[in-house]
């Protein structure tokens, strides 16, 4: 089997030149899926016939000289919490078993309008609550770099689908690092856009003030194309930014001279091997002409605590909708009334981690605890935002590790209640402050990928991608592929 190493930009050029067809690309995706996914378990659902038919339509358009966009005919995968009309959307939860979406998420409608071919739906931690893709009711996804290890999460399936070359691009969602952390652990690029850059309409809600959809690919240039296709105001999401999506690909000049990068001081939680790779990445950007100075974000040490209070509070409210009445699973009728139906349905339908988070969220919002926990967390969130505002007076972007360590073993962190939460120590701050962030492969440590992260000012998605692209033009780390 050929080793697909092509990027979206390269495949798009090959399609335009008539060197390859969309149908052949989609067939290759399914060949690789058949060969690799039994071991990886990146996908929950696939739509082979529909995807092949859509690819044939893209090829027919091209034959007529029509082309909807650079994504026309490109296979992509979606995390199973982004709904597509006529397709299942389970969020890897038993409670949504059998659910078929009656509508398209705005991201899906825009991808389809751009001609992208959606091949399937990828595995995740149940309702995106996790950092390892282990809490999926369908079982874990495995890291293609080492099958005994986790791909990270919660968008582990999407990261693996790209890392293993099944699709050149995928979408996930990032509430506390759920795109950037698995991207780092799988050796691909993953981007969380500015909060509000991408419509959340049709993204199953976890924590609404933090959730954001974003792309996975091999390069920042691909992420720019993917983000351009889906970004921009959407009347269906009143929290989407009012301005039209900015031109992102056009901003990729390859030039970082004149930019000042803030290297985060508080990186003591990162393993030595991770810190070493990140230092090398920063040095490379310095050689490319960027100025580097150290910056401090003193309140980031409170970010995990702040995040878990806010995210679980919002989750407990958002997940109240799963009641066995309007959609999803319903417990068998008992003798009791509607409260019993709710309680039994939710007891049967939710997994352990989701229940824990609903309980914590309900607790921190309950009478007597609201001020001490939820309001306090929102105040610390303000201090964290101010840290970033101060830092961005001294630099244009902040560079830091994406994760504290490389991929961990499946099961390794399941017994300690806090170990998995601490995985997100470098990623949650961007969600709390609404910033754009991207994780870029910057080499290996003991054979496993390391990601470094670039955070930008709110709305400056383009400058984050520009720095990432400049780095990738000078390095080959994004060309490294897993052994299988």
């Amino acid at each position, binding site marked *: 089997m050929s080793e697909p190493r092509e990027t979206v930009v390269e495949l798009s050029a090959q399609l335009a030149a008539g060197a390859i067809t969309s149908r052949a690309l989609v067939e290759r995706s399914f060949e690789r899926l058949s060969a690799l996914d039994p071991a990886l378990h990146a996908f929950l659902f696939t739509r082979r016939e529909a995807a092949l038919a859509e690819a044939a339509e893209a090829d027919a358009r091209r034959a007529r000289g029509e082309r909807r966009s650079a994504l026309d005919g490109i296979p992509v995968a979606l995390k199973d919490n982004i709904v597509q009309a006529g397709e299942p959307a389970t969020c890897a939860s038993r409670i949504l078993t059998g659910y078929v979406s009656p509508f398209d998420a705005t991201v899906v409608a825009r991808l389809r309008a751009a001609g992208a071919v959606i091949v399937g739906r990828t595995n995740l931690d149940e309702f995106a609550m996790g950092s390892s893709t282990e809490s999926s009711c369908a079982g874990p996804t495995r890291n293609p770099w080492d099958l005994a290890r986790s791909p990270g999460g919660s968008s582990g399936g999407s990261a693996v689908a790209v890392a293993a070359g099944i699709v050149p691009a995928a979408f996930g969602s990032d509430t506390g690092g759920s795109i950037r952390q698995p991207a780092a652990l799988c050796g691909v690029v993953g981007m969380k856009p500015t909060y509000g850059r991408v419509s959340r309409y049709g993204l199953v809600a976890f924590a609404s003030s933090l959730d954001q959809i974003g792309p996975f690919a091999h390069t920042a240039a691909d992420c720019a194309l993917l983000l351009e296709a889906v970004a921009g105001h959407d009347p269906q999401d009143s929290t989407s*930014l009012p301005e039209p999506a900015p031109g992102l690909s056009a901003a990729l000049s390859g030039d970082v001279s004149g930019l000042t990068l803030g290297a985060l001081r508080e990186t003591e939680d990162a393993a030595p091997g991770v810190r070493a790779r990140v230092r090398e990445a920063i040095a490379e950007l310095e050689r490319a002409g960027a100025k580097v100075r150290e910056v401090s974000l003193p309140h980031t040490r409170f970010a995990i*605590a702040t995040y*878990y209070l806010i995210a679980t509070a919002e989750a407990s409210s958002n997940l109240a909708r799963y009641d066995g*009445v*309007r959609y999803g*699973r319903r417990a068998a009728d008992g003798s009791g009334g509607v409260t019993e139906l709710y*309680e039994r349905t939710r007891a049967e339908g939710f997994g352990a981690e989701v229940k*824990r988070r609903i309980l914590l969220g309900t607790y921190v919002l309950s009478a007597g605890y609201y001020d001490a926990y939820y309001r306090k967390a929102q*105040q*610390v969130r303000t201090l964290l935002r101010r840290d970033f505002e101060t830092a961005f007076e001294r630099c244009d972007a902040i560079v830091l590790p994406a994760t504290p360590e490389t991929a961990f073993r499946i099961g390794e962190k399941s017994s300690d209640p806090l170990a998995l939460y601490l995985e997100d120590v470098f990623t949650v701050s961007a969600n709390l402050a609404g910033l754009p962030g991207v994780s870029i492969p910057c080499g290996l440590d003991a054979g496993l990928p390391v990601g470094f992260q670039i955070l930008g000012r709110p709305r400056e998605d383009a400058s984050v991608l520009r720095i990432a692209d400049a780095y990738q033009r000078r390095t080959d780390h994004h060309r490294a592929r897993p052994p299988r």
Partner: protein
Amino acid sequence: MSRISRAEVERIAHLARLRLDAAEVEDALLRLEAVLDYVAQLEAVDTRDVPATAFVIPLATPMREDVPGALLPPELAVANAPSPRGTAFTVPRVLDDEAEG
């Protein structure tokens, strides 16, 4: 010092409409205790006069013309319901539960 009691876990579970078995109550006690110990670090942060951030991007409430848009047809809206009747959702009797609060 124990931050949360078994009775409190059971009360919260009821508020969240989650029926927990005995093992889940024990798990919840252990986990909530650990998380609440961890988040107690926030007590050390001076937040006097610090406003709360609920949303990061300041946006005005968006307004639109009051005209009907395209809505989900009722048949489609109930298509995922576990026990629909016509174009209605069904629930067990509710009045006794209302009294319970």
